[in-house]
């Protein structure tokens, strides 16, 4: 019924890309989505909530722009820079946005959160950011648990932290 992450059985192709800061070669099925391909690489932080582009759980950054990776064929990511939720922080530190999500407890079941973090990550670097901006930029991300308040607060807080140069999310 759905497409999940399983290949179609068509001849596979190799693509080269920058995945979370490292060069990577991936062998993908021509119809396979980027979501399916990164998940097959073990990057299962990218979630599948709908596979129709309607929920945002699968958001990844392609050359810094959030995209629904469930709709994007993996072959289209060839030669591009792809960042998944696993690439937002480092092994030892959370990104300022992740740290803000922690301070605000901006998660319940957590299933939507990787996609929301990815979709919101470009926002924290903007010069100006209002509550309305955050709300409208997150239109494509659904969360069934939180009612969004903690999420929007966390994005604004992270933006504030980054702007005032106190990165690292000091509480």
């Amino acid at each position, binding site marked *: *019924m*759905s497409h*999940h992450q*399983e*290949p*179609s*059985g068509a001849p596979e192709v190799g693509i080269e890309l920058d995945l979370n800061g490292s060069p990577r070669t991936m062998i993908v099925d021509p119809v396979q989505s980027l979501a399916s391909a990164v*998940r097959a690489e073990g990057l*299962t*932080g*990218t*979630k*599948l*909530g*709908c*596979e*129709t582009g*309607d*929920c945002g*759980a699968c958001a990844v950054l392609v050359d810094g722009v959030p995209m629904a990776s469930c709709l994007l064929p993996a072959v289209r990511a060839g030669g591009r820079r792809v960042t*998944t*939720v*696993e690439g937002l*922080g480092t092994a030892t*530190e*959370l990104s300022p946005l*992740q*740290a803000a*999500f*922690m*301070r*605000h*407890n901006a*998660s*319940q*079941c*957590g*299933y939507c*959160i990787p996609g929301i973090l990815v979709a919101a990550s470009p926002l924290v670097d903007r010069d100006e950011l209002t509550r309305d901006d*955050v*709300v*409208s930029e*997150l*239109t494509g*991300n*659904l*969360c*069934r*648990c*939180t*009612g*969004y*308040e*903690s*999420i*929007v607060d966390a994005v604004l807080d992270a933006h504030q932290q980054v702007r005032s140069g106190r990165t*690292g*999310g*000091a*509480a």
Partner: protein
Amino acid sequence: MTTTQDTIHETAAQGWVGRGIPQVDIEAKLRGQTEYIGDLRLPNMAHAAIVRSTVAHGRIRGIDTSRAERVPGVLAVATAADAPEVKFGPYTPDWEILARHKVRFIGDEVAAVAAIDEPTARYAASLVEVDVEELPAVFDPFAALAEGGPVIWDEYADNVSTLFTIERGDTRAAFDAADLVVDDVYATSRMYHAYLEPIGVIAHYVDGVHVLHVPSHIPYRARQTYSAALGLPLDKVRLVVPPIGGSFGAKYEMNTPLIAALLSRKAGVPVRILFGRDEDAAYHRPRPPFVFRNRIAVRADGTFLGRETDVVGIAGARTYWSPATVATAVHRPDSLYNFNAMTGRGRLVYTNESPTTAMRGFGNAEALFGIEQMIDEIAERLDIDPVEMRRRNIVQEGETSLHGWYISSSQLPACIERVSEMSGFADRRRARPPATAGERVGKLRGTGIALGHHVSGYRPILPDYDGSSAILRLGPDGSIQLYVGEPDVGQGHVTVMAQLAADELGVAPAEVKVQGIDSAFSPAAVGTLASRAATMAGMATVAAGADARRKLIAFATEQWGVPEAAVSWQAGTLTDTTGANEPFTLRQALHRYGVVNCGLPLLATGVHHPKTVMPDATKYGNASAAYPFAAHVAEVEVDCDTGQISVVGYWAAHDSGTVLNPQTARGQVLGGIAQGLGWALMEDVIMSEGVVRNPNFLDYRIPGAGDMPAGVEVEFVDAYEPNGPRGAKSLGEVALNPVVAAIANAIYNATGLRCKDLPISPERMWRYLHLGEPVESSSAGAIR
């Protein structure tokens, strides 16, 4: 880097309960490291596809699986012939793992294929031929109740799956004495739980045991159901619960895990079933739609004298959790308001549709949608302030309500007071009386109030016992593991359990590792439902902590050879008050305990028996440990040109006793408001001829960030519940219960129109505003 997470590693002098700390397991979620069912892979795992009925009702003449079996890569095909010939179910034995003699709804599971990958499984599934002799089908509950229509189960020739009746006091006398009787019909819609994580399971039959990895929030009941269905003793079914990506009542699956189990046994490898959103949204088990007729008898001074209620709910083709939701819809409001006498009937009706099940609010939110609007109507007709009207009729702390429910704590009056003040309710209402016919132009604003309550656990869920138990395992290495049986569905129970245990042991919450649930080692808990987890598992956790302390003190007494009274325990340190021995830190004591006992961890246990009773034959008896309350106010803006309704302000005051964690608690309220807003204004599973017409997130819209009002105010009033952990009681469902009614009352205040059907979609609102339709529920004719 300092984060709030770091602060929870510090030992808090004043204790951890009551402090807003983020979920103890949040970092993995933020890093994308939490392994949900769709992320788990077992070696050699096969993938399955389900063959579903394409007709709503029919007799199965034959199933031909031969073509599917010949597809290369197919490992097993299962039909009812592979399952024991038993019927099972939580209330009524009308479930089968795979349909045997009849199909009863579109989507009914008929066969399943396991193969080396999903495309192969799906392709092979498409080759299974099901020969069905079609029968007339019925989709309308009132048509199903009528004589001579299609019969879905021969055992239930009237199509009534469950009949619930209740009578208390002299209702007839109450109506005879009434100065005013209001009589109205309200109808609620079919709602999709719309958890972001679709349904999934991995089954692995190994060493004669079915190991089921299933994100179930009611694992013990699920295990009972599964073992009965498989015809096996309990210990031959093991349930392992991965992190759950949202449930809201849905994830106690009846047959999907069992289908995977049949396939795994047959194929000899682990088998995964993982729905895509398309399959999940088309074949899910939704919230049952209800039609309510209520009659309320009132004295001129606004005192309620009696209530009559008649409720019809849709079971779908099999009986899931909906019998309990019907019972709830009929009689739970009697513990919010004192109606003094009541007569109620609830009928749960079979139709040829997907079975319906529990969803947050569980019949109570549905009932309040009607009752809270009727109270406003009564107030208006008697010219009594709607706040005063409610205050006058609520059940108070210390009272036993109509059906024997003892209200051990209630700060509902304080909630009403606070929400009125926070929202400026009286001023808003004075400023804007409802619009009259000629005034329904442009944008109209209105404000509405509604109350809500719920339970903290419910005695009848599991006949064997209520309550909960917990195990603390304190290792010689200083590690602390807590085992409870109530899964965290995202609310943050794991976090509040860690806070409670941390305070008992004098450590930080991060040091208490609350273990995932596995029936091989977790207590056999009733589960996370009926808003019971924090209250019940919380009490068990506190008891286990006390047991650990007792055992540590006894150990130190023995080690030191001093009288027990000489050993003191304070904030995680054992001290010999005679001064003869060096104190033990917890870590030192545990190490020492391990040395003396050859590596044995210190095992402590806690059992909590709540003061609940199983209701008697007349449904009388205190069924829940505690009752939470809330008062909500909503402000809406109705665009008369488009019918679009926006919620522009929201205020909530809650009595959940002691607030164990203000941060997670606020999140529950916000989440409840969002779900209520969606239910009130946009969400509706559209069905025709048994087919879901909007099985995706584009056509079944749930609220997004832009649908929520900004600046929601939430307040928890000072309260203490004697029957809950450190004075706490439940929150998850009461957060939703008043929302829909508060919004509907606000819409009336704006437009002068009473909306009696859900959802109050723009189209519906526009028709009410402009086509002059009588604002009567579309179901009114059928139930009167």
